[in-house]
């Protein structure tokens, strides 16, 4: 009985999932680095902070999804053309919203994230001061 369960588990682990994916070759610069190492480093840095649209928890630098490859191709070509990385990020944010970037931006919605730690520090300073000086005054 146990052996049978184990055999089934082994089979399940080895089964190849049915793939619903295209068979086209990847875009030219999906897996090819730029010739200029400085441009490639710039592209790499940007790609690590852009979010894959279909894998959702990976950057496009980490993902093998075809659309992530197409995004890398576009990032590398634009960098090679001399575009600024932040311009490319802005171009994508204009299309997909903040979702597509891992680098947090300060907006009307996100400012509390930046302000809260400062507020908490200030609160801690006030409380500690009250405790120390208050103890002395009493």
């Amino acid at each position: 009985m146990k052996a049978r369960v184990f055999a089934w588990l082994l089979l399940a682990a080895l089964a190849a999932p049915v793939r619903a994916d295209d068979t086209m070759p990847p875009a030219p610069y999906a897996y090819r680095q730029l010739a200029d190492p400085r441009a490639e480093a710039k592209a790499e840095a940007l790609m690590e902070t852009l979010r894959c649209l279909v894998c959702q928890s990976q950057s496009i630098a980490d993902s093998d999804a075809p659309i992530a490859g197409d995004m890398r191709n576009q990032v590398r070509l634009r960098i090679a053309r001399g575009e600024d990385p932040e311009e490319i990020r802005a171009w994508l944010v204009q299309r997909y919203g903040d979702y597509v970037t891992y680098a947090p931006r300060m907006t009307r919605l996100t400012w509390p994230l930046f302000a809260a730690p400062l507020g908490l520090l200030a609160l801690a300073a006030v409380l500690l001061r009250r405790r120390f000086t208050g103890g002395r005054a009493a």
Partner: protein
Amino acid sequence: MSEPAASAWRTARWALWLPLVLFALFVALVLGGLLRPENRDIPSRMIGQPMPAFALRAAVPDRPGLARGDLADGRAHLVNIFASWCIPCGVEAPQIAQLAAQGAIIDGIAIRDHPEDLAQYLARNGDPYQRIGADDISAVQLAIGSSGVPETFIVDGKGIIRYQHIGDIRPEEVPMILARLKDAS
């Protein structure tokens, strides 16, 4: 010596409950996030924007490709982003055919597809497309903020993107799409 300490204790009494209250709020927030149905759609921010300039080569030999100029011809177009390797696209094909039968102009953008596979797909699933452009590197897809297949955009007669439908069009959604198409023309 003991008196001021006792009064300080009294004023701070309500504060003792503060961490518990904060914790309860935190638990409520987490539970709320866990129980809410997950939504993985990434809506395009290009609704209301003009279709970006593009020109795609013909995806199948018997049909012209697709360019921005073809869409801004005074009539509303349905732009269906699809692929022969995409299973939900086949599921939505009868609805696309139904939309075409009701007079919708349907153009296709085939994502990363081979002409032979596409021809087979069209023979199998019906062929309501007036034009089909081949987007081999998802360039147009990225330019209009689409993140997968199938997606369907309504582009009005001036070439402005009016609506994005994420995922396959279900039979019950056909009247809604037709109404939006009418609004756009």
